[in-house]
């Protein structure tokens, strides 16, 4: 009997074929003007363009796009690779900036009950704000759409990292801290050699949540600020009524999001420990 993995893969592929088959059948062009559905009659008939494209069309487009992902033919015609690269660049910049603040501040809050109590009210108020709500303010203050998008990423990815770092640091087992104390480690050495590795799994969990949120938010942010990026691309293709491109880019958003999550998952494995 085949292993679980092989059977799962077979099943996955059959699901895919089934779904694509149903999709293909559902999107066959109507035969002449005879077989109009009630909906189509209401819509006054349909044109080829405004129908959901069949998977074959999407695959054909994907093939064309992916064989030359980095072409650049002017502001409104860039390869999918370039658009994704813009988005990834914004996400990583905002994310790293958030990390640079969230980790030290999280450490501080986690180690000092005073700081925790002092800062907690602000965190609780700021955290539930939709990151996109910051956009107008960011655009007004920063006066630059690209930097504003990065700022939105920064603000949305900071909270999970901050809170998880604080939580992880605050909950390091007292025994391990005592080991550091009995070996006369200073505060900095204790933080680096004991607290950081002890809290790392919790911190990485926060970082993984953050990257997921950042990738969700960048699409929306780019739809708002326009110019470049995968979010803008989706919106632009929608305005062009090029639904095959829309579907294709939706899939690409999923793939890149999965890769980002996979990378963080790997990092998480590296710092995990069993008690």
């Amino acid at each position, binding site marked *: 009997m085949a292993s679980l993995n092989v059977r799962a893969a077979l099943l996955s592929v059959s699901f895919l074929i089934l779904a694509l088959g149903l999709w293909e059948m559902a999107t066959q062009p109507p035969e002449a003007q005879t077989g109009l559905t009630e909906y189509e009659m209401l819509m006054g008939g349909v044109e080829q363009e405004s129908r959901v494209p069949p998977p074959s069309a999407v695959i054909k487009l994907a093939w064309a796009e992916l064989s030359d992902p980095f072409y650049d033919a002017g502001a409104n015609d860039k390869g999918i690779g370039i658009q994704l690269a813009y988005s990834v660049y914004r996400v990583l910049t905002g994310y790293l900036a958030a990390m640079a603040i969230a980790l030290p501040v999280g450490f501080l809050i986690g180690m000092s009950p005073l700081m925790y109590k002092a800062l907690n009210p602000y965190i609780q108020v700021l955290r539930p704000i939709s990151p996109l709500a910051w956009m107008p303010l960011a655009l007004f203050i920063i006066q630059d759409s690209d930097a504003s998008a990065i700022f939105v990423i920064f603000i949305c990815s900071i909270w999970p990292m901050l809170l998880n770092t604080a939580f992880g640091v605050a909950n390091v087992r007292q*025994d*391990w801290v*005592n*080991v550091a*104390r*009995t*070996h*006369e*480690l200073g505060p900095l050495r204790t933080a680096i*050699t*004991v607290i950081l*590795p*002890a809290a*790392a799994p919790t911190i990485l969990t926060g970082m993984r949540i953050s990257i997921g949120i950042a990738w969700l938010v960048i699409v929306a942010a780019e739809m708002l600020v326009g110019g470049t990026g995968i979010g803008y691309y989706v919106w632009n293709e929608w305005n062009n009524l090029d639904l095959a491109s829309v579907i294709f880019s939706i899939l690409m958003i999923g793939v890149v999001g999965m890769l980002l999550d996979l990378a963080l998952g790997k990092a998480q494995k590296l*710092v995990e*420990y*069993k*008690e």
Partner: protein
Amino acid sequence: MSKSFLEVDGLSKVYPDGQGGELTVFEDIRFALEKGEFVCIIGHSGCGKSTILNVLAGLDEASAGNVVMNGKEVKGPGLERGVVFQNYSLLPWKTALNNIVFAVQARWPKWSKEKVKEHSERYLKMVGLDHALNRKPSQLSGGMRQRVSIARAFATQPELLLLDEPFGALDALTRGVIQDELVKIWEETRQTVFMITHDVDEAILLSDRIFLMSNGPNARIAESVKVDIPHPRARATIFQNPAYHKTRDYLVDFLVNRSGSALPEKDGSPKFVEPARDVSQSKPVSAGSETESETAARAVNA
């Protein structure tokens, strides 16, 4: 007055009792340790043994009294006092070897990497773990973890070693094996050791003196019992010594009948007793005088 290596003076610990009042766990604890002594402390659960040990370690603060080691007051933890915790407290993300390297580096920051490693390996070997250097604590059994923890404490060569029920969580067989190892290391290093145990036999095997604590609240260290059995001792043969039985009977009697009411001397220092005084002065008894139950006990413990 000649000063002892470690002097504990008038230690007490008071907690709020949760109803607005106060609860004195122990009070006016006074004792002294000499350099190279191995002292165990026995008392019923909750009388405050761990608290006293943590105060000596500098991890906890007493409500009153002070601890002076080598003429210096103990205020906070320090490398000259090593601690073996009941739950091992190894860092789980480090291998057995690196747990020790961590401690050795802290102790001698100027040592080269090779020297640190070599020193650490030597101590792991001493507890019979040279085959498990690169395993993480989660991949070790409870007994092996405790060995690593003991090796870590000895490796930093502290002037005073504090052991809080180091074998409490181990099964009897493993416990016996590690006791033997502890005896062996101690014979080699002759470190000053202060150890908590619940096991009367273990205390007799290891200590020069045994402190007996009365029950809490307001617990005291009532007596200091001399264990008059020459070193080196071995678990398998210590039963043959008549002093062993005298001492054991005395300790058990205290724990069963007298721990509720026992008091120290008027000046607060523990009463010094030598239960085996008569036998230890007569010549050691031959194995022939052993009773049947002792033979049985040895068979179990061997």
